[in-house]
């Protein structure tokens, strides 16, 4: 990024470097949320409905994993993807894909835990009905996920918030490479270390504005969906 400019100027002039950073931030975090949802929603729903020994312990652990420290996740993914690690031959370290993997690991427990709670609450409401209609376990999971879809948007947004805000994991596995793996949060960390605090603060404001925009979009989508569902 050019020196001696404010973040506002960069936004107003549509600075290509800044736009690339914003784009990569969104791609990485949204991809991670999609992947984490594909894993977390079915897992959370199944955990809500299926009784098995040790279920309470699994719920406690899952809830605790919502607080996974990003730097620890980053380190674990780094060790796995490093050339000297078990998945080194994939050659993914210091690429955006590695960043998506790390954020997926961070976000999946959040979505799974919130899904589990949402579905379990809904299940109490639907139990008699579904029992009477003799719906099998897969049908129950599908029905409850579908009927909880608007509430689950909040779980996805919680996951997105976590992904968009973290720097600890992606700076380790992405390397903060200019034009390749630099995101909003790693750019803020870099500008802070260069002592350009005004630019760092400005980029922080841009990031917050983007997160608000994504939330507004999701909210609008949810409202529109609810109206259509009647």
């Amino acid at each position, binding site marked *: 990024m050019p020196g001696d400019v404010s973040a506002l100027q960069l936004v107003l002039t549509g600075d290509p470097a800044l736009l690339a950073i914003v784009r990569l931030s*969104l791609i*990485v975090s949204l991809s991670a949320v999609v992947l984490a949802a594909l894993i977390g929603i079915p897992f959370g729903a199944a955990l809500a409905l299926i009784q098995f020994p040790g279920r309470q312990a699994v719920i406690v652990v899952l809830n605790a994993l919502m607080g996974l420290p990003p730097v620890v996740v980053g380190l674990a993914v780094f060790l796995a993807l490093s050339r*000297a690690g078990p998945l080194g031959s994939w050659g993914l370290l210091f690429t955006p894909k590695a960043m998506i993997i790390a954020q997926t690991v961070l976000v999946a427990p959040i979505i799974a835990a919130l899904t589990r709670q949402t579905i379990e609450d809904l299940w109490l409401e639907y139990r008699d009905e579904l029992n009477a209609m003799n719906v099998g376990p897969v049908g129950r999971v599908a029905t409850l996920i579908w009927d909880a879809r608007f509430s689950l948007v909040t779980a996805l947004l919680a996951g997105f918030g976590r992904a968009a805000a973290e720097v600890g994991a992606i700076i380790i596995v992405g*390397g903060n*490479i200019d034009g390749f793996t630099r995101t909003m949060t790693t750019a803020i960390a870099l500008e*802070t270390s*260069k*002592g350009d605090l005004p630019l760092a603060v400005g980029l922080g404001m841009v990031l917050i504005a983007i997160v608000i925009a994504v939330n507004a979009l999701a909210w609008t*989508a949810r409202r529109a969906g609810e109206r259509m569902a009647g």
Partner: protein
Amino acid sequence: MFTRRLLMAIAASVVFAGSAFAQDKSILVASTTSTQDSGLFGHLLPMFKAKTGIDVKVVAQGTGQAIDTGRRGDADVLFVHAKAAEEKFLSEGFGVKRYPVMYNDFVLVGPKSDPAGIKGSKDIVAAFKTLKDKGIDFISRGDKSGTHQAELNLWKVAGIDIATDKGPWYKEIGQGMGAALNTAAASNAYVLTDRATWLSFKNKGELVIEVEGDKRLFNQYGVMLVNPAKHPNVKQDFGQQFIDWLVSTEGQKAIADFKINGEQLFYPNASDPGA
């Protein structure tokens, strides 16, 4: 339906991301924060790319971490500044050959009020002794970076065993050069920094250069290809092209031409075999 369209857009972006990440002619260089934060790479890499078409991706780390990245095979080229550590890396067989590239120097910066009374001295070792004797606040990188290793070496030359002699005045922050300068600026402490980072640093506050110009503050940078015999994934051809360009007449001139506010930051010396 709106939600479905949104989901499709997200799915499309994921697929698109996959194709956008495909890249071929590129190398990964593990280097230090001083070369990146000063803007040197921003100056050199476009020239190198225009000439060879090779994309150079830089991961800026402390020298200790950069060497570890090379040892693990996660980088193709190392561009660092700690000769002893570089030679150890070579002797372990992880590097092919070390080429000297350029030098600059370290400076001791501190508060304008100069509570240690060392401003203007050219004797860094005496200055370090004064800091210790008076127990003046000093920020240490504490991160095994090249600058940290240079600092530890200066304590040793001063006859001070900093591991046992350090008091509450000696603060190891375990972070990069920028963070160390931010900390020193915020707490009116002394800190050893490379001149390039200092010149380009924007949050100097009350900090000024206190001690400079001592021969023992010399800071040599070297470049090495990670050994393809140890790590077959190393892009030997492209990596060597980058090294050859850095030490060529053209690359050396590009380094000399890099200036901030008219001041040259790095001095090319690839032709000095002993560097």
